Structures are given as C-alpha cells and as structure tokens.
C-alpha cells in the first residue's frame, strides 16, 4: 500500500513561507492568489493487513514523528 502524508502548519499558525510565495505570485501578476500555505508531502510504501490497519499505523506515525501537532495538522491518503 502506498501512503501519502500531507503536513501543513495549522490554520492560525503564521506560515511565513506561504506569505513569501504569495507575495512573489502577486509580483508576477497573479493578484487573485490568496491564503498560500507551504507544506510537505511524505510518501512511502507500507506493508499492512488491510486499509483500516494501515490508517491506524500511519496515524500513529504522524502523531509520533511525521507531524508536530502543536503547530501542524496532517492528512493521510492511502492508495
């Protein structure tokens, strides 16, 4: 099973990279761009019995290492 974990700063936590990218896009003429957030994606293969087991495992990985839940939220995709 292939897992994709998307990690972003939580809403309300200032994303200074997102702000800088937003200003750069405005500078290039895309004035309609708003609320840019820069995050990261972590992908990996995972041996797991079934989807529910995989979900539980990836969630545990996020809580323990992949995200710092003081400042970040995460979203998991399994395929």
């Amino acid at each position, binding site marked *: 099973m292939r897992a994709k974990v998307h990690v972003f700063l939580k809403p309300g936590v200032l994303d200074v990279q997102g702000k800088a990218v937003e200003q750069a896009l405005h500078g290039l003429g895309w004035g309609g761009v708003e609320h840019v957030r820069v995050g990261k994606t972590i992908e990996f293969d995972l041996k797991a019995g079934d989807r529910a087991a995989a979900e539980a495992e990836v969630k545990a990985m996020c809580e323990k290492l992949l995200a710092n839940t*003081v400042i970040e939220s995460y979203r998991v995709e399994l395929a």
Partner: protein
Amino acid sequence: MKAAVIVFPGSNCDRDCKVAIERSTGASVGMVWHGDTALPDGVDLVVLPGGFSYGDYLRCGAMAALSPIMAEVKAAAERGVATVGICNGFQVLCEMGMLPGALLRNERLKYVCKPVELEVTNSQTRFTAGYKGRRQAVMTVGNGEGNFFADEPTLDRLEGEGQVVFRYLDNPNGSARDIAGIVNARGNVLGLMPHPDRAFEAELGSADGAILFQSALASA
C-alpha cells in the same frame, strides 16, 4: 560538580558549551554521544547544544528527540537534574514535549545572527538566581527557526506561572510575547534560543552567559 553535553550528528556548539561551562564554573564536562544510553554517574547539569542535529531534517530537533540518549535525559530531568537546551537544544526539548510550544521559522524568513539584549524576566529560577540585581543580559542569537509559538492559553499559563525566564528587548524573530527562554513547571528544564555559550567572557562581547551556567551548577 559534573556536567554533560549531548552531541548529536550535526551539533556545532557542543565544544563551545564544554569550554563555556568549564571556564565559567570549573566543573568537569563529559561529552555524551547521542547513541549512548547512559549519562555519567552523578551528573548535575545536562546541556543540549546548538547546531543542526540531523541536518534539521523533517523539523528542527525532531530526529534528535528520538535519539537513544534522550530517554535517559528525560528520565534524569524527571529526577530533577538541571537540563538546559540552547537553540537547537531548545527545539529538541519542545519536540520531546519536555517544554511546551514549538519554534517556527523566523517571521522575516532570515537567519538572524547577532548579539541581543534580554530582559531577565524571572531571576528566581535555578538558572537565573545569579542575575538577581540585574534586569538585563546580553547574549548572541544565531537561528533561522527561533520564533517561539504556543497557543494563547499556554502563553498565559507560562507568563502567569513565572515560566518565562528571558525576553527579547528588541524581538529579532517574531517570537510570541517576545519570549526568548522558558522553564518547565518544575523549574529544572530551561530552553532558550540565545547562546550563553557564546557570551561567557568579556572577550566575546559579553560575559552574561557565564552567570547562567554558574547558577545552574550552584543550585545542584
């Protein structure tokens, strides 16, 4: 008196810390590799130094927080041993949950490296007792992710309980409420972004950092 400095792959202030502690306190300082599983017997002070542990991969301090030695550091802190995290060491302590909050990218996205003036907000901790009459100290910061963040109730609690130990007089990185250093509720774990290890004798521009190491060991 015995101190230990933890060395992670990518630490770059570990030797600075050793020299700073030795010269300011006369204590013997052991260097402890991150892969070790024991601290020296009878250690009075554990220091997590600045640097770029594990190349800052994933998040600053995230990998170092999982190093084998850190379970022992946490256990020692729970026994009451004085523990100081400086810069990257502060990030590690937050990642481990030994201190509340987290360090974000600096507000203006720049790495900031310069001497800063600090207010000694609480001089009644075991790390700051030596500052008693003095309300200010000068130390150097050097960080790209030193922007302290915690949610509002946590910030209120830190302030209300006297856990804010140092504040910036001129905030260099956007830190919430100008916070430069905090202690845990018990008062034996300190994290700060400025480097006392770069300010321990007058030739470095300031000797104010020496007081921190002296206080920490005097309290042991």
